[in-house]
């Protein structure tokens, strides 16, 4: 097919600057929402996935939705620890404490984890960012980076009061953007005492051979002395975010689709006007020998160029969102979780496809109208 030069389509966008800006702007806003939602979901998943180590497992009470809801009695915990596949095990207690946020003063639930030195070793992604690690058997605590930023009284040297005791913050740790960044860690036995707990919340363990997981899982879950769920740490954390992730995706994508209808209508109005204003040119092009298909392609190209412009602007704005950090209650664990917007190459392509669909759908009907004009009518109406 002999096509009308692309310059014809693209330059026409440049002559009507205001219209192009408004139409592309509308599409940019939709692409922004679409990309931002995907980025938020990706950020949430990344926070969760990076929390899990490939050779760690998490043992909780059967059907417990989170560690906070779970209780593993001491004898049961000892049994898990004694399994041959387990190299290191950490018996941990996880609770939520209500703390005031720094800026707004509102109260939110913070996850507090009592663990042992083995537990710290099981999380190699955690590094000290300030101060030092807490001493075992003391009332010292260390806080995750996100907690230190957001919550009052969590700076190094400050004291937090909970469980009828004062706890001294001796360090801040960086967990590489994973869920642990939103936790406070301390000695497990001190915490159990303080909270008057008899049972642990969970047992975290590293396997000598990750492939031994299935056999271990079967054995533990069918043991009549135990009522536990055994999961790979990655899977455990993935499930922790499933509800929130699902909510974000569904709500966000529904909104994007609805908004895109508005943007498509805008594109349609613009393209209909473009066709109406250029019927003389269309007639001349057809007279010169360009086929209907070429006319259709030229106007579709114009609509797609609009969409591409909107995509570029929208994606640029969305990528700025990477500077924003979100902290909200994770519904599954009931505790505060910090994560951010993450831009992936996949999202770049998905938003491009989304923009292309918007451009095509908005432009196809006007382009068809342009192509269907008879030459005589087009020249006459000019």
């Amino acid at each position, binding site marked *: 097919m002999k096509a009308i*030069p692309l*310059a*014809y389509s693209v330059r026409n966008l440049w*002559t009507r600057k205001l219209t192009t800006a408004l139409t592309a702007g509308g599409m940019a806003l939709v692409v922004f929402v679409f990309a931002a939602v995907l980025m938020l979901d990706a950020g949430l998943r990344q926070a969760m996935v990076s929390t899990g180590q490939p050779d760690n497992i998490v043992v909780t009470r059967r059907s417990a939705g989170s560690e906070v809801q779970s209780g593993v009695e001491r004898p049961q915990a000892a049994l898990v620890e004694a399994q041959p596949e387990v190299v290191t095990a950490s018996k941990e207690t996880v609770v939520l404490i209500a703390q005031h946020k720094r800026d707004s003063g509102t109260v939110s639930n913070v996850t507090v984890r009592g663990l042992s030195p083995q537990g710290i070793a099981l999380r190699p992604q955690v590094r000290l960012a300030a101060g030092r690690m807490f001493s075992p058997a003391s009332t010292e605590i260390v806080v995750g980076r996100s907690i230190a930023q957001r919550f009052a009284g969590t700076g190094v040297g400050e004291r937090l009061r909970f469980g009828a005791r004062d706890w001294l913050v001796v360090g801040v740790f960086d967990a590489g953007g994973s869920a642990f960044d939103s936790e406070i860690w301390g000695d497990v036995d001190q915490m159990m005492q303080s909270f008057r707990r008899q049972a642990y919340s969970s047992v975290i363990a590293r396997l000598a051979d990750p492939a031994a997981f299935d056999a271990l899982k079967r054995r533990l879950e069918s043991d009549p002395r135990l009522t536990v769920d055994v999961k790979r740490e990655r899977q455990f954390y993935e499930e922790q975010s499933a509800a929130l992730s699902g909510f974000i995706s569904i709500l966000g994508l529904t909104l994007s689709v609805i908004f895109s209808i508005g943007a498509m209508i805008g594109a349609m109005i613009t393209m209909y006007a473009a066709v109406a204003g250029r019927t003389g040119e269309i007639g*001349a092009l057809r007279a010169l020998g*360009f086929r209907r298909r070429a006319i259709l392609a030229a106007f579709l190209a114009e609509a797609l160029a609009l969409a591409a412009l909107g995509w570029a602007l929208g994606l640029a704005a969305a990528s700025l969102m990477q500077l924003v950090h979100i902290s909200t209650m994770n519904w599954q664990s009931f505790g505060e979780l910090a994560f951010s917007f993450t831009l992936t190459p996949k999202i770049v392509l998905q938003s491009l496809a989304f923009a292309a669909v918007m451009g095509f759908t908005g432009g196809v009907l006007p382009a068809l109208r342009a192509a269907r004009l008879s030459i005589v009518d087009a020249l006459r109406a000019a």
Partner: protein
Amino acid sequence: MSRRVSPSLIEVRNVSKSYRRGGQIVPVLHDLSFDVLRGDFLGLMGPSGSGKSTLLNLLAGIDQPDAGEILVDGVDITRLPESDLADWRAAAVGFVFQFYNLMPVLTAFENVELPLTLTPLSRRERREHVAAALGLVGLTERAEHYPSELSGGQQQRVAIARALVTDPKLIVADEPTGDLDRQSAAEVLSLLGQLNDQFGKTIVMVTHDRRAAEHAHAIKYLDKGELSEGADLLERSVR
């Protein structure tokens, strides 16, 4: 397959055309037959609504008659399907419109180049043809200007360059001087005359301007769908 090589470039045989206007059928051309010889410069005149533009559209292959045939250089264009007709137009006909119909977003050069993009010529070859065409109409130094930067007369000359860049045998012009001042009109008409004399292009020009018509070699009058000729009907040619 041998083609008849006749002295006539265009043979119109029993052509009829009518339009539907507001539910009514208005006959415009009825059983028209005439020839246009190769190298003719024909002026078509007549009162408004007489169908002269309609006839021009039929000759140029941008409209189809209800009945009859039109042969251009031996090819019956009334039998061609739309896609073949498009290709035929690209090769055989050059258009000059009253309101120029240049693409405002393309430069003079790009406008003249447009018909060549339908041919298999390379970019360099296209450039040569465009330069030649622009040179012929005397607008070489305006090649990079947009239509909005050109006067009416200059725009029409660009349109003429576009019309001849593919070296068509036939050039149709619909009121080419209708929107121009006297001097520009004279330039355009002398240009058309030059194309006819020097390059042997067959030209069919619709006009209501008697002065323009005088540049043509022959004049036909179209009135109520019927063609007639002769100077004795000159009085009737007022618009």
